[in-house]
């Protein structure tokens, strides 16, 4: 069984987790994968249970991150074994054929005689056979698929080049006219496969794809009454829940399916689903939607819809929410390769026509030579190395991209849409403003003492905002809290009432201002309205700078599921030209993105919760903001650590630079091709020219790609690289 353990971060963790068998009965060996933050544990199902193993890990301080969707996922290595083996075979053949070719290049043939040349040729042919048939297998297949769909992908000229190289070499060896191009052939595949290994390694180890099951707990508490009429609790898996089952949801737990409230006081936080930051109050008999979490005490609910049909799940199954992108069809390389392939074909046919008229004996060598030299090895390496390096540069700085295609889309973004709650604002450290005559310290002490009794989010924020220390609070008598309304209590003989307008009315307090804002807390002392606290979510640091950086070059919008009490504040941040939209449902957010795209924009959506997931998918680039890398995030193209959000403008600029660098690498490799082609078109291509030109062009392009991107990455102002290590759990 493999567990995802996000807490793994140092050598000691590895050591401890590989000693787990000492602590638990029935636990066998365990192996840690540090980079993936996973631990595979073998255990005997007859002597222990999965729950006990997970509990053991938890007690050691390494709580495993269990998700329903993990249960049927097998771990896939970053680079497949097959690719490594293909690379090994190509490298083996490359080295050995090179040795056999060297005598020919140095003109030692005359010295050793034609017998050796034929022997070397036959040996090279034998060595190349597995390269052509097995190492190149993926290129044959890709080229064939491309041709079948009438699409000139880069694999087509590569396959043509391999075929020309191999065919020409076999003819030369069989007829005894030369030793062939086997070393160039093996070298070509070796370089190409190196590029693919690099590309696969550069892809993040984070999971970007989610389905609704990732959101739910593994099991819930089901209540049932046995024949004797006694209540019984049992833990059951989500897949075994049925309509009509009664569940107990405790404080902080997620509601797994649409249900009716049958017992307890429900104060449901739907922020993840709708983006609304304040919990809503529900009464017995009312419907609760899946995805909300209970924030006050335990409740009992009765399921009204199966898990697979509830609101949240139906959201996921919407057509627009599951947009599968064709990631390769329109990449920069493929656009270029179409033009490239046609040019090569035209040149090859042109050369045949020209030499067929002037000197027919050179027509075939010229045709084959062009196909060989034009084989776009350097071209095929340019994009993977440039974009792959850029991905690593960003990854080191807490910005993770799904794949290289995302980088190309990033470069084209001209409209940015932000979510508000959780993305631009944080739940912590909100700004609390008191409207009314300033409070004296004694009054602050009383307020602090009353709110300290309550665990409601607003109470906690007021307590944090008060200038009075927790130790300085006074005794509270007659404390009462009504969920969703407010609190009251007596301090030093004064009766304090804090809460909503309705709550103060119920307590017989009149002359209240009409606020209607959900983030405000009215305060009354001894029956007289004293003032109002306005609690707003705090902006993340430097958001103002980010917005002003982007404002000149991008069209900006703000979408929020929250109400518009903070409109004025974001208007000052975003300026007059930006669109600010409040009270948006997830579907409306998605439609807003669609609308922008229909007006010809490439849209980037920056969001954090499930309520943004539709918009994140619909957008051309979806950026998920997370507080902690490895924490749960909705499906997206980019995962961004929250502290890196202010760097978004630099990331966009860096992606544009990178795409420009890809174009520059294309130019370099094309220059090599022009040199090679001018030799080949004259029909004078020799193996030695090919053996020098091909590796030289590949190495130049790779060096340029990696070097320039690293250099630009350091100068792009993306912020310092992330350090390793950290505190021990």
């Amino acid at each position, binding site marked *: 069984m493999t567990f995802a353990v996000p807490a793994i971060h140092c050598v000691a963790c590895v*050591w401890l987790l590989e000693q787990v068998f000492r602590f638990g009965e029935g636990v066998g060996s365990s192996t840690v994968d*540090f980079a*993936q933050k996973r631990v595979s544990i073998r255990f005997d199902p007859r002597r222990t249970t999965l729950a006990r193993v997970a509990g053991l890990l938890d007690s050691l301080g390494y709580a495993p991150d269990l998700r329903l969707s993990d249960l049927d996922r097998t771990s896939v290595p970053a680079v497949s074994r097959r690719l490594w*083996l293909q690379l*090994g075979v190509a490298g083996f053949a490359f080295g050995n054929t090179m040795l056999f070719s060297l005598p020919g290049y140095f003109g030692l043939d005359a010295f050793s005689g034609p017998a050796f040349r034929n022997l070397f040729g036959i040996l090279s042919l034998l060595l190349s056979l597995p390269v052509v048939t097995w190492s190149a297998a993926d290129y044959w297949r890709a080229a064939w698929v491309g041709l079948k769909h009438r699409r000139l992908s880069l694999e087509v000229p590569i396959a043509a080049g391999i075929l020309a190289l191999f065919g020409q070499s076999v003819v030369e060896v069989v007829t005894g006219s030369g030793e062939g191009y086997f070393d160039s052939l093996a070298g070509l595949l070796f370089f190409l496969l190196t590029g693919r290994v690099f590309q696969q390694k550069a892809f993040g180890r984070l999971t970007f794809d989610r389905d609704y099951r990732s959101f739910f707990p593994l099991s819930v508490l089901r209540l049932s009454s046995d024949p004797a009429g006694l209540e019984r609790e049992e833990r059951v898996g989500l897949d075994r829940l049925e309509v009509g089952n009664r569940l107990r949801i405790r404080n902080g737990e997620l509601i797994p399916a649409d249900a009716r409230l049958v017992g307890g006081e429900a104060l449901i936080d739907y922020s993840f689903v709708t983006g609304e930051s304040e919990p809503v109050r529900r009464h017995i008999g009312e419907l609760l939607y899946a995805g909300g979490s209970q924030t006050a005490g335990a409740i009992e609910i009765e399921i009204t819809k199966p898990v697979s049909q509830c609101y949240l799940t139906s959201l996921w199954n919407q057509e627009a929410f599951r947009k599968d992108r064709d990631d390769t069809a329109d990449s920069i390389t493929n656009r270029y390769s179409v033009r490239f392939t046609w040019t090569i074909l035209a040149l090859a046919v042109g050369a045949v026509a020209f030499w067929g008229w002037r000197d027919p004996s050179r027509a075939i060598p010229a045709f084959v030579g062009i196909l060989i030299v034009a084989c776009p090895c350097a071209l095929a390496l340019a994009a993977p190395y440039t974009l792959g390096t850029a991905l690593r540069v960003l990854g080191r700085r807490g910005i993770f991209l799904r794949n290289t295609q995302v980088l190309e889309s990033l470069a084209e973004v001209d409209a940015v849409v932000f979510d508000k709650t959780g993305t631009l604002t944080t739940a912590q450290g909100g700004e609390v403003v008191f409207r009314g005559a300033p409070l004296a310290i004694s009054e602050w002490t009383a307020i602090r003492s009353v709110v300290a009794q309550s665990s409601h989010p607003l109470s906690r924020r007021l307590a944090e905002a008060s200038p009075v220390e927790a130790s300085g609070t006074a005794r509270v008598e007659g404390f009462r809290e009504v969920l969703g309304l407010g609190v009251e209590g007596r301090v030093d003989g004064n009766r304090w009432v804090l809460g909503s307008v309705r709550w103060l009315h119920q307590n017989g307090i009149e002359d209240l201002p009409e606020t209607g804002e959900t983030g405000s807390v009215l305060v009354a002392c001894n029956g007289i309205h004293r003032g109002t606290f306005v609690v707003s979510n705090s902006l993340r640091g430097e958001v103002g700078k980010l917005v002003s950086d982007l404002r000149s070059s991008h069209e900006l919008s703000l979408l929020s599921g929250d109400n518009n009490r903070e409109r004025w504040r974001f208007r000052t941040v975003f300026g007059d030209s930006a669109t600010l939209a409040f009270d948006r449902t997830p579907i409306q957010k998605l439609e807003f993105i669609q609308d922008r795209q229909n007006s010809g924009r490439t849209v980037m959506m920056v969001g954090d919760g499930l309520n943004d997931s539709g918009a994140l998918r619909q957008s051309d680039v979806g950026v998920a903001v997370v507080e902690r890398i490895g924490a749960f995030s909705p499906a997206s193209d980019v995962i961004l650590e929250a502290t890196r959000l202010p760097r978004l403008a630099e990331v966009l600029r860096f992606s544009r630079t990178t795409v420009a660098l890809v174009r520059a690498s294309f130019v370099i490799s094309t220059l090599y091709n022009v040199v090679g082609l001018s030799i080949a078109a004259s029909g004078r291509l020799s193996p030695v020219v090919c053996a020098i030109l091909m590796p030289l062009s590949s190495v130049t392009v790779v060096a340029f790609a990696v070097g320039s991107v690293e250099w630009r990455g350091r100068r792009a102002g993306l912020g310092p690289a992330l350090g390793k290590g950290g505190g021990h759990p």
Partner: protein
Amino acid sequence: MSVILLLIPLSLVVAAGFLGAFFWAVRSGQYEDTVTPSMRLLTEEPKSSTRSLSKDEKPLR
């Protein structure tokens, strides 16, 4: 010069040996996690998690 007829097969055999070693390394999963083994080295005790499973223990995956 004829000694080369001996040397060539010999060099091919040696090279094939290395290729075989590479195949073994890939097949035994050594290329899948290149980070953790370097850390395992730092822990003092000899790796004890190699304790083999007893006959009645069965790996789950």
